[in-house]
């Protein structure tokens, strides 16, 4: 058995660590590329959302590396991701790939069924204690990764050399990939912290603009899908703040809230309540709640990211204009799919950043002064 799994940003580092600690043979798909997307687009229904297409491409490329088993999480609730595993199983079978697909979810609500599936992947040679230990270490690795990523978000606008942050980022990732103990994780985080501190000592500019990125989890975690929105914003001199990190999702869904991850998701539904009091599937409520949180924290702007046709996010995006009006904060929605062009995204980001800059630098007009006097 050789296990593979779909890509989602840095998640592969965590999943690989999990399987390797358990001595399970694993084939990480090659990094997602245009070629991956082309492979997936051929097999997937045209109207399916972008992540499904990329997933399929990942599997096909992993098959070439000898993978024969797919591990994917499932979902309960009205988001199409819930049936991804099943749909992917059938599409791959029709296309002639003999993959075993293990969907990590409680079948018909049965936890025993979930346990059996985990046992199947982990094999007989691992005790439950060992499995839990491996899961905990993988979780800590994902927290460390998220910490690094957040530091890079803050460093991009502050490091003078344009590629410096990317270099630090890839070096730190390499350290985290290699780390097999907690000590290694801590060291990696510490090292990138130090380098950033040294690197930005020369920074004398104005405080960078802060933009909150909210939206559908796959698109915000996966730079290939979002056309590097976060990096592009960083290069435009913006500090990015993100609503959902991988470890938060893991904490919420795998550890059922016992662990909270790098950025806890638990406050979002409460913050979303005045605007969206119901669960609408996916992370719709989190998107709205996070937008409220960023607005309250004084972010300069908010960008919502979603794949074309994502229902929960469409619901959220119809609510966002009210937050925009209530908190007087510019919010822009970016929809991505396989037809999205970098140029279009770049134009919108540039225009958005210009808007925020001009808003910040604008001088008081007579009307403003009168408004202040009235208040």
């Amino acid at each position, binding site marked *: 058995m050789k296990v593979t799994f779909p890509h989602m940003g840095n998640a592969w580092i965590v999943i690989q660590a999990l399987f390797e600690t358990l001595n399970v043979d694993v084939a990480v798909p090659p990094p997602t590329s245009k070629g991956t997307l082309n492979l997936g687009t051929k097999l997937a229904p045209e109207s399916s959302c972008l992540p499904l297409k990329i997933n399929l491409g990942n599997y096909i490329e992993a098959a070439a590396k000898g993978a024969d088993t797919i591990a994917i999480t499932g979902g309960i609730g009205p988001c199409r991701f819930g049936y991804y595993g099943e749909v992917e199983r059938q599409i791959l079978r029709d296309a002639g790939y003999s993959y075993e697909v293990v969907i990590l979810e409680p079948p018909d609500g049965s936890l025993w069924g979930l346990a059996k599936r985990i046992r199947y992947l982990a094999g007989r040679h691992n005790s439950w204690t060992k499995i839990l230990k491996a899961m905990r270490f993988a979780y800590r690795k994902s927290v460390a990764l998220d910490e690094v990523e957040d530091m890079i978000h803050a460093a991009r606008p502050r490091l003078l050399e344009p590629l410096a942050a990317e270099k630090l980022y890839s070096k730190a990732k390499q350290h985290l990939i290699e780390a097999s103990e907690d000590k290694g994780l801590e060291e990696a985080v510490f090292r990138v912290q130090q380098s950033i501190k040294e690197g930005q000592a020369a920074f004398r500019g104005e405080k960078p603009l802060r933009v909150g990125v909210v939206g559908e989890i796959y698109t915000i975690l996966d730079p290939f899908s979002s056309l590097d929105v976060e990096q592009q914003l960083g290069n435009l001199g913006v500090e990015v703040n993100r609503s959902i990190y991988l470890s938060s999702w893991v904490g919420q869904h795998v550890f059922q809230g016992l662990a909270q991850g790098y950025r806890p998701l638990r406050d979002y539904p409460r913050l979303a309540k005045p605007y969206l009091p119901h669960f609408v599937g996916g992370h719709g409520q989190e998107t709205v709640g996070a937008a409220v949180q960023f607005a309250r924290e004084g972010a300069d702007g908010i960008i919502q990211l979603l794949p074309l046709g994502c229902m929960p996010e469409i619901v959220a995006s119809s609510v966002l204009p009210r937050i925009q009006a209530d908190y007087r904060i510019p919010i822009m929605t970016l929809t991505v799919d396989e037809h999205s062009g970098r140029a279009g995204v770049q134009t*919108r980001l540039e225009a958005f950043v210009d808007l925020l800059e*001009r808003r910040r630098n604008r001088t008081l007009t007579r*009307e403003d002064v009168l408004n202040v006097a009235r208040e």
Partner: protein
Amino acid sequence: MLLGNEYYLGVDVGSVSTNLVLLDYEEQVAEALYLRTMGRPMQTIKEGLKQLRAKFPQARIIGVGTTGSARQLAATLLGADVVKNEITAHAVAASRVHPGVQTILEIGGQDSKIICLRDGVVVDFAMNTVCAAGTGSFLDQQAGRLGIPIEQFGPLAIEAQHPVRIAGRCSVFAESDMIHKQQLGHSLEDILAGLCQAMVRNYLNNVGKNKDIRGPILFQGGVAANPGIRKAFEEELGQEIIIPKHFAVMGALGAAYLAQEKLARAQGERTASRFRGLQVVDTEFQASSFDCSGCANHCEVVEILQDQTILARWGDRCGKWSSGKGEQGSVSEVNVR
């Protein structure tokens, strides 16, 4: 203070048109050119400069701004001082020619946008994303199909007595619906007016969705030449629509203003422009591309060459080529097309 022969140049290279504007010392438009890009942006820019040079042989360009989808290319060829996206350029131009403007409707060849300003600052904007139904190319196409020159489209449309209702959600369906209305025997004028209304509805539902449209409203972009569309907007919004004098070249005008702002901001002593001079017209440029095989992304890197020297490269995700690293030497490592 600018001298009589000193100008700022604004260049807007879009998918359909390439516009050039010369701004004189009184901040007036000395010249505005509207050329068809026809898929050859480099030649078109040079052609534009040639026309400028012929008309203003004494001109000294002291600042250059570029915008539009080929702004980077134009900036490389010309040596621009400012490279800005279309939204900002349009907003700057509009608020300079009409201070107090609160909404800009802009419809070009293949894209359309809406920009909301308050107190001269852009507070919201949107561009058409996945559909080009409400843009100039569509009107062009339909005019061609009806056998009328595009210039007559608007004047005929405002003659209409009873505009017909045409489904405007999608340009393909709009076309079949229009054919259907023709077969029913509606007059050409009524159909044209119906088409204008459909396009305006489509624009307001897609691009203008959720936007707070307040007057004064400026309507710019190539399609503003069409009085039928203007009338349809006025009916739909119940407000007067202002069409600025240089509606077709507002992007280029904005770029020129931005260049002026930037160079003026550098206080006192005027900073020298990076403009490469009007002799650019006689220079040969080549564009080529190759697939970088540095990683799995296989980015298609474009390079602009002048006499075998590389002026600029872009298209890479990692920045290794565009930031000037990986110079000539390593080109051999990649498969040059």
